């Protein structure tokens, strides 16, 4: 026997969303444009469960949620690099612990959204920090390497060269000359 059905996708989707949100006891209002207003604070675990359940129906939560999480990853990395007590911790463990997601999930999400890996971002951030210290302080490279938890000056210089294509000395020279030309221009 064959029967024909006719369906209204709009109603289908709204029904699925309502069922899934009710299942997790999440009070909500469905707005017409695929936007869901959630009426209470929900934890990261609940959020992830909801996302997974919806994915099974081919419903995907849009990037803004993801962008928000990527931003939290970046913030956590910054916080970690700036806190002396945290500098010997493993980034992967700290992130997973702090943000309550598996590192694999965070890592995939990060690469997919930012075109770079978490590991690369950490290096980029550390080198950026080193640049700031070179530009704005009188610290020697040895002191900077120590402060940023590099095992040696050679390690810092090597990573610096790899990221910027320049040696730390060349970099400092360029910044100094830049300042020189700027001062000349303002005179």
């Amino acid at each position: 026997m064959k029967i024909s059905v006719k369906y209204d996708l709009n109603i289908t989707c709204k029904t699925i969303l309502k069922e899934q949100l009710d299942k997790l006891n999440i009070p909500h209002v469905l707005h017409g444009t695929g936007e869901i207003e959630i009426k209470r604070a929900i934890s990261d675990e609940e959020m992830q469960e909801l996302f997974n359940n919806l994915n099974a129906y081919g419903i995907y939560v849009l990037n803004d949620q993801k962008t928000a999480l990527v931003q939290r990853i970046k913030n956590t990395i910054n916080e970690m690099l700036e806190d002396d007590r945290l500098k010997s911790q493993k980034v992967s463990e700290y992130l997973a612990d702090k943000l309550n997601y598996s590192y694999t999930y965070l890592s995939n999400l990060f690469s997919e959204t930012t075109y770079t890996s978490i590991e690369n971002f950490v290096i980029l951030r550390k080198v950026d920090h080193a640049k700031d210290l070179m530009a704005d302080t009188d610290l020697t490279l040895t002191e900077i390497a120590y402060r940023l938890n590099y095992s040696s000056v050679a390690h810092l210089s090597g990573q610096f060269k790899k990221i910027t294509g320049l040696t730390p000395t060349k970099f400092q020279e360029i910044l100094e000359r830049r300042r020189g030309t700027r001062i000349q221009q303002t005179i």
Partner: protein
Amino acid sequence: MNKIPANSGKQILNVALADDDEDDRLFFQEAIEDISIRTKLSLLSDGQELMDYLNLPNIILPNLIFLDLNMPIKNGMQCLKEIRSNPKLNDVCIAIYSTSCSENDIEETFVNGANVYLNKPNNFSKLRDSIEKVLQINWQYHTSNLNRDNFLLRL
């Protein structure tokens, strides 16, 4: 409901290239289209055209300009200096895109405010990879609070 591609809703990176060599422009265009980062490319054929373009009213400024050094009418170095002395163009990153390997040229462009120095590679896959690397790093500067004043990259 359709699956939404992973990079939908993502910002587009606006890129401009000023180069007087038509082949180089086409080559560059092909390479940048081959990269997963979404870009909108504007092509200009000399320095004056670039400056006129940047001064158009209501223009959406590029995030990143690739600038050839040897161009007729107005060369890359003049453009660089003009761009860097215009506060309206403060946030634009500049990548020098040149055949010159002279250390002196490289340092001069950095001193005058270039962010990236990219030697024109001699084959397509190298070009593609280099552009990808520049875009990736530029993207990080565009979306993270990295210090743009210290953004120097030599490829």
